[in-house]
């Protein structure tokens, strides 16, 4: 995720054509590394590390000698992942002198074969060139759980399934390894472990429930996966959507504005608006539903400030159906601005 964020970068010149007499290196190096004009690789740790434990640190050290008859400057340009760091032990390398590049990879729980690369630059008074150092490995993953957090939006009153996924790479999933399921989100206490058709090494920890009234809700899903010694915790953020939408979504009174019209229209099948309620009845705000037009599905809410504003504050207008269910929430803010002298 780091790469798309990069805004600064060093300008990199393309590597020059490879010399025909490049020294042979027995290691399985990336091509550019042994084609450098300025640096000859004289020693290198293996590129391939095989299966390694998650959380372990891989270190690959490469030693070069300066082949030129002049000083070269070396620097690391980039790495392919935030998990990878690299540095040279010196930045100026005299003729026939040695310089070591150390690449360090912190192994994350990413399934499958991985390759991280370090791009570096060698420059001298008339030219520069780039080289690449690679580190290959495959994390040993017992299992992985995804996502690390659940963010969902769903209409109020609808039925919703919240799924967390447990994946055993290369291993057939067994339900018995998952137990002690719980969810603290209101209305979602019943959980089950479900299998995926055509997915032999994936299980879903699934909680089902009805979405509560409009608003924001938070909770946590917990479950235990053997043989881990502590439960998996997945935070859940649920935004329950009102069945009607308002345009604009709110109203602000800060000056000469005394009234504004808010258009309401259904976003989900639901009853018609029939009542208004102000959460802060002391707010200098009044709201009226204009009469319904049978030819239109939209309704208009008229919001007014009552008198001169003498204070700052806010309230929320609740538009209700005949049973008292919330159809839409409309926040209102008001500001008593100082008058121009």
């Amino acid at each position, binding site marked *: 995720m780091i790469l798309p964020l990069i805004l*600064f970068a060093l300008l990199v010149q393309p590597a020059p054509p490879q010399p025909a007499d490049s020294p042979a290196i027995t290691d399985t190096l990336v091509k550019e590394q042994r084609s450098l004009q300025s640096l000859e690789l004289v020693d290198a740790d293996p590129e391939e590390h095989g299966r390694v434990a998650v959380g372990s640190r891989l270190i690959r050290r490469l030693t070069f000698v300066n082949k030129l008859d002049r000083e070269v400057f070396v620097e690391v340009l980039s790495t*392919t992942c935030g998990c990878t760091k690299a540095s040279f032990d010196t930045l100026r390398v005299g003729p026939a002198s040695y310089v070591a590049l150390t690449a360090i990879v912190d192994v994350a729980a990413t399934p499958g074969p991985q390759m991280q690369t370090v791009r570096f630059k060698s420059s001298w008074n008339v030219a520069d060139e780039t080289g690449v150092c690679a580190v290959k490995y495959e994390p040993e993953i017992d299992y992985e759980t995804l996502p690390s957090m659940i963010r969902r939006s769903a209409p109020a009153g609808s039925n919703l399934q919240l799924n967390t996924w447990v994946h055993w790479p290369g291993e057939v999933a067994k*339900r*018995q390894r998952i137990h002690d399921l719980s969810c603290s989100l209101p209305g979602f206490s019943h959980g089950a472990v479900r299998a995926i058709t055509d997915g032999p090494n994936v299980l879903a920890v699934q909680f089902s429930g009805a979405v509560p009234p409009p608003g*924001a809700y938070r909770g946590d899903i917990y479950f235990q996966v053997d043989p881990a010694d502590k439960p998996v915790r997945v935070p859940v953020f649920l935004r329950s959507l009102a069945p009607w939408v308002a345009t604009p979504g709110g109203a602000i009174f800060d000056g000469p504005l005394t009234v504004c019209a808010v258009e309401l229209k259904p976003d989900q099948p639901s009853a018609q608006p029939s009542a208004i309620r102000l959460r802060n009845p002391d707010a200098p705000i009044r709201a009226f539903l204009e009469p319904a037009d049978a030819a239109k599905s939209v309704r208009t809410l008229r919001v007014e400030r009552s008198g001169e504003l003498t204070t700052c504050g806010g309230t929320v207008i609740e538009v209700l159906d005949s049973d008292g269910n919330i159809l839409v929430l409309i926040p209102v803010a008001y500001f008593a601005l100082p008058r121009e002298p």
Partner: protein
Amino acid sequence: MAAWVLAETRRAGVEHSGRWFNQSEFPTSSDAEEENGIMRAYRYFDGEDRMFGFDLTVRRGKVAPPDRDMLTTFSPFHLLGRYVDFSQGRTIPELLADSEHLHTIDPDPDQPWPGLCGDVRLLEVTFTLTVRVDPAHGYAPRTILLVRKDFGAPLESLETTRYKQFDGIWVPTAGVRGLWTLLSKRDRQDGYARAVEWARLASDLESLNGVGGMNEKTRTATLQSVRRACATGSCTGEPDLFYHPMGGSEQSGPFTPEVLVATIVSCNGAATEWLQTPVERWSALPAPPTAWMFDLFRGRQAELSSALEPIRFEDAPMEKAELP
């Protein structure tokens, strides 16, 4: 030599149900995935469980639950404060309503907008959250600053430098995000010197690209904001620690601040037809028969067509000993 580069161009749509897509192009330094130095990617989230991520350059992808994708990719939603609460997803009004020591702040010469300031808890750490609103643009957030209270070090800053009104709502169309990190001067003397040097280089913004289409007023505001987001400094009570733009202590240089320039096509309506017909669009992607995806839900590599099939549940397998 330092230079500003175009990090990414992106076409994106987000729907209130949670569905979203983005199609992006960005330069890459990865030799393994390079094709003329540009990567093209498409991602679509179905609003429920599955995010389809496809690398159009190397023609590989994955189907997986979305994680923090929307949090990390700078968008107008960040400028509205939607992702300030990276721990619980609260909105700015919800955060401020829960905050301690909430008080108003007056406009100042550098940031001439009124605002609110209070302490908020995120992941068990106390931050001071300052939000300045712009009365000329419907009281939309103008600047948002999150400062770690114990060290006096900024973590994130967001500043909107241009708005456009849709359906009565002012939507950010340009802005700057800064992200900072901490480092020990004692442990990383070279990193400290490098971060200071980067901050000096970043103050020369004449070479800043990617801000085309801005008028003079927006450009000036953007450059002022970038300067604020390049700050490097010592931490309160911890003289050994210093803060600097994220990545600024590395040889490759920082990857923040970021400048966003957006064109809003639609608001409060269908985002784009891509959100209406994602599967059809997905099937029409220029992918050869060799294209494949890793489908986490099925735990294996799959062809594009089968990766698009809906997930079907069945009873979980039981151990023989537990079968009735």
